[in-house]
């Protein structure tokens, strides 16, 4: 069962929250961030290259231009690989644990898995933890669903 909702993050960008219910004991929340806009990319590249050209006119050294191209490429690759988050996923599996995955624009995925025995409770911390920085209303939705699962798990583990 899939559901999609639209929220906004602290900077005003649009975030999409997708909820998937696989079974009463397994749920997945997927938060997608706005993509890299062509406008901002062009603006940054133009600024860097104009600055490099200005330096070149001052110094008459062509190494500056090649260095600027190099820096732009490396900077873009680094930004895509380490900073720009494409999607964040929270997967809760009853009696196994909680898994948080961040996938970056370059395809890199970094995953953390916390076993259920180590989880006492889920809280909304004051400092925003998720790198895509959602607003409170989005966090409340996720929080409510997580608490439902935890309560369900506590009920079933208490019974047998």
């Amino acid at each position: 069962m899939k559901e999609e909702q639209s929220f906004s993050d602290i900077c005003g960008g649009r975030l999409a929250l997708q909820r998937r219910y696989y079974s009463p004991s397994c749920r997945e929340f997927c938060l997608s961030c706005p993509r890299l806009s062509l406008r901002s990319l062009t603006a940054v590249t133009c600024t860097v290259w104009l600055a490099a050209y200005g330096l070149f006119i001052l110094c008459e050294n062509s190494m500056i231009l090649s260095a600027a191209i190099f820096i732009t490429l490396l900077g873009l690759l680094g930004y895509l690989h380490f900073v720009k988050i494409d999607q964040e996923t929270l997967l809760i599996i009853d009696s196994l644990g909680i898994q948080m995955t961040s996938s970056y624009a370059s395809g890199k995925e970094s995953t953390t898995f916390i076993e259920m025995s180590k989880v006492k409770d889920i809280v909304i911390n004051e400092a925003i933890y998720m790198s895509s920085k959602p607003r409170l209303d989005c966090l409340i939705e996720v929080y409510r669903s997580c608490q439902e699962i935890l309560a369900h798990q506590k009920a079933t583990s208490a019974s047998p």
Partner: protein
Amino acid sequence: MVLKAFFPTCCASADSGLLVGRWVPEQSSAVVLAVVHFPFIPIQVKELLAQVQQASRVGTAVLGTWCHCQQEPEESLGHFLEGLGAVFPHEPWLQLCRERGSKFWSCKATHRQVPATTGAASEDQVMLIFYDQRKVLLSQLHPPTAPPDHQAGDATASTGDLAAVFDTVARSELLFRSDRFDEAPVRLSHWQSEGVEASILVELAKRASGPVCLLLACLLSLVSAASACRLFKLWPLSFLGSKLSTCEQLRHRLEYLTLIFSTQKAKDPTELMRKANMLISVLLDVALGLALLSWLHGKNRIGQLADALVPVADHVAKELQQLLQWLMGAPAGLKMNRALDQVLGRFFLYHIHLWISYIHLMSPFIEHILWHLGLSACLGLTVALSILSDIIALLTFHIYCFYVYGARLYCLKVYGLSSLWRLFRGKKWNVLRQRVDSCSYDLDQLFIGTLLFTILVFLLPTTALYYLVFTLLRLLVVAVQGLIHLLVDLVNSLPLYSLGLRLCRPYRLAAGVKFRVLEHQAGRPLRLLMEINPLPYSRVVNTYRLPSCGCHPKHSWGSLCRKLFFGELIYPWRQKEDKQD
């Protein structure tokens, strides 16, 4: 609670049979290790399981049945499979079923002996978790969980669900030893059933390593005995040995080699990794050293270096002389005390003159010395770099002497000034109580004190300037030596084997696991795929970093500045706790 069944991916296409594995009651999870195929004799299966249980101390048992057939199982097969439950009593009894070519499975777990109020056998929900048996067997969880020789069963189960799974698979190696080409009474399906993995090179290396290690260990013990003999404890040699970083590095390398070639087997995987890291580090060092050696000895570079050395030393000495002439004049427009200036300047100039004569005396032998020292690069790049650092220290010995003279003079002056300042205020330093006490002085004491104070104050700028100049020079030399030591440290302590393993076989070093939900159909059990989450590179370096020489600066910036201000001598790279100021 939902029952979790860990199923190996290699058995997903195996024929029907019995499921064999371990049941962990605390987490309600069943770890399936292998599938026993029809036909079998129950007695033999039970014998095999008892053998495995004894060898691995893991509670292996028959967990249930596995059915992989063309279409939905017929009635008779269904009854037969259920009847097996009576032959191999296990609670709960797992029944997994899959149609050929279909992605979806059906699972049932029945409890027979539950005191059921309903009167019927109760069923549990089952969650299927697929895992790659080979990767889980070979991988190592970080941080490591319970030690390997713990009692199986309860102890490991309490540490964590996943640690229990890894532990179970790792310990059941005996079960995986037979493949389908063996004439065993029981036919099993597991990750090695298509043929046991082995490599000829690895086996040969294992056979050869015994005698080779023994031989090298004997040689190394001879070398260590020779180096520990009494001759080296006598004063000049022991003094040199503690000062030169080359000796330190050689000792370090000898330690590494002794550890690598020791005849004891590694006790746990961490020690094995450490040995492998050390071996690769030594090999890389020697390889880089040999490359440097071939570069140095080609095209007579040693000769060129030796020819350039004496002019460079001359040039440095001339620059120092010019600097002193500048200080003896009016440096930066400051007016120095003429007499003290001349005394200090001439004193240092004489030293430089002595130094130059010494270098010229040595110049015919320099090429030979350099050639022989260059040969030592075959011991490793780190040794060559340490020798370079020592040569720099020896060549700039005069700067070190000047720094010591300037610092001592300045230190004396500062202490004198502070003590006389206290005299001005009628106070005195109480050595017994380590505090400042008031004291009444005589008139003549006060008079002489004031005179001395004035003299010291007016001579302060001259001494301070000399101290400043020579401290800066000394710090420059120390910075260069520090860079070389940093490089040596890097080569010594980088765990290359672990980094290579993380690059090529990331599943070997596991930080944890990650789950992926596979295609799901309503009404069918949930299927997850468990993959290994590899350790990030920074954690690999931190966990497996080799112990280095320990030549890190022990001062913080604040204490360094304080020492410089008061004129205390600084020894940033040495570990001598016994040397007195």
